[in-house]
């Protein structure tokens, strides 16, 4: 299992041709208290960079972008009742969707943990 990161602060943990996607602890900190997460329907298809979810804080809504192209096989229904999990466990329990990758070659365009950490330090 390898985890990759995007410049828009999404993460994707890949095993074979499926990935689990969420937003990073850094992003959750920037957003503030999350009060609602809107997730796509299972079966939805996305291209890399498409907005596929929305995270709402008290103040504003933020789009979440697909790190890779694929189709949604599962959504995290637990976030509906406990959106605050995003602030508590952004990179574990608060995963948003599980996807079937359309093209694993896209992963080479993403950052690993070290690169993402350095990227955040430069912000």
């Amino acid at each position, binding site marked *: 299992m390898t985890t990759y990161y995007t410049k828009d602060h999404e993460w994707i943990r890949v095993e074979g041709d499926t990935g689990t996607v969420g937003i990073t602890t850094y992003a959750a900190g920037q957003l*503030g*208290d999350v*009060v*609602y997460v*809107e997730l796509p329907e299972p079966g939805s298809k996305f291209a890399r960079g498409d907005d596929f979810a*929305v995270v*709402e*804080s*008290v*103040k*504003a*809504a933020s789009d979440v972008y697909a790190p890779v192209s694929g189709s949604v096989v599962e959504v995290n229904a637990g976030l*509906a009742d406990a*959106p605050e999990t995003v602030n508590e466990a952004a990179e574990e329990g608060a995963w948003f969707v599980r996807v079937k990758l359309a093209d694993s070659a896209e992963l080479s365009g993403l950052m690993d943990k070290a690169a993402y950490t350095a990227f955040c330090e430069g912000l």
Partner: protein
Amino acid sequence: MADTTQDTLKRTALYDLHVEYGGKLVEFAGYEMPVQFPAGVKDEHLWTRANAGLFDVSHMGPCFLTLASGVRKDPAAHEEIAALVETLVPSDIRGLKPGQARLTVLLNAEGGILDDLIITRPYEEDHQGELYIVVNGAMKEQDWGIFGTALAGRAQLTRADGRVLFALQGPKAEKVLSAYFPDCAGLKFMESRLMLLEGARCIVSRCGYTGEDGFEVLIPADAGAALVRLLLDDPCVRPIGLGARDSLRLEAGLCLYGHDLSPEISPVEADLTWVIQKHRREAANFPGAARILGEIKGGPARRRVGIRPLERAPAREGTEIFYGDKVIGVVTSGGFGPSVDSPVAMGYIDTAHAAPGTKIDLMVRGKARPAEIADLPFVPARYKR
């Protein structure tokens, strides 16, 4: 890319404190202001309703409007300055008691709202012929221009926005503030007095923008920065940013100019008819009286209402409101209410469908979300009457 914001944005006298306390600074009304502190919007909101929240509102527009002839010890002087201001606002200013504050609106010729503001008559006998007025920060240059033009030669406007203006709101506000202003405990809601703090002349008013009991204090800049530092040392007090200021006032059903109020909206549509006292309606002697009195008589075409989404998605400003497949209104303020643990909103709805309990749909991101029209406020007010 070079950051030019620091060249163009203003800072209040409490800016250094905001930085020290870890405020996340954003632009608001031309100032660099904290939208939140490390605690976050939700915690700051809940803290204010349980304890005492301290807000820097020095970006707003406090000022004094004084007769050209000056202040004097004579109630007739108040009549004179009040009569001048009543040419611009539809409220009873002449009838203000000494030390009484009142919410009102500046109107244009069409009866639309140019700003909402609070006007206070000084309590002090020898200080009559002056009004203490606080307008919105984003509108202060407009409003002061209007006062200046309309009252040229007859009254003088002195801006006081170089001072500190802070709000202390919440059930513990009186306990905390009375250590510095012992007389503040004797004020009732919408009462105001001049009080001295080690020689500094301060105006202490029992009012605010949260629905809680609390005070707003105008104080010279240096004394203000020192006092706010001491207040923040009190374990009952936390600094609160503009994010929580907005969620608190939304739960309280209070309007935000530029969102819930605008030049196209009349006080009747805005459910602010109560700011127009009876004898002023009868006299019809304010800008836009024809439209306003017509709406009072026949009902306005649309009305400001509370809106409660029935699911978890918040509906923000600009969200279209549907009744069946007809658009019947729009959301003008929307977000999440931490004290009610639910999304909350306000908007304008065609009067025919504006009754509380009416089931409506909110079009959020292309999907119709169920909601209902709700009474305001979402959280009961706790003013000390």
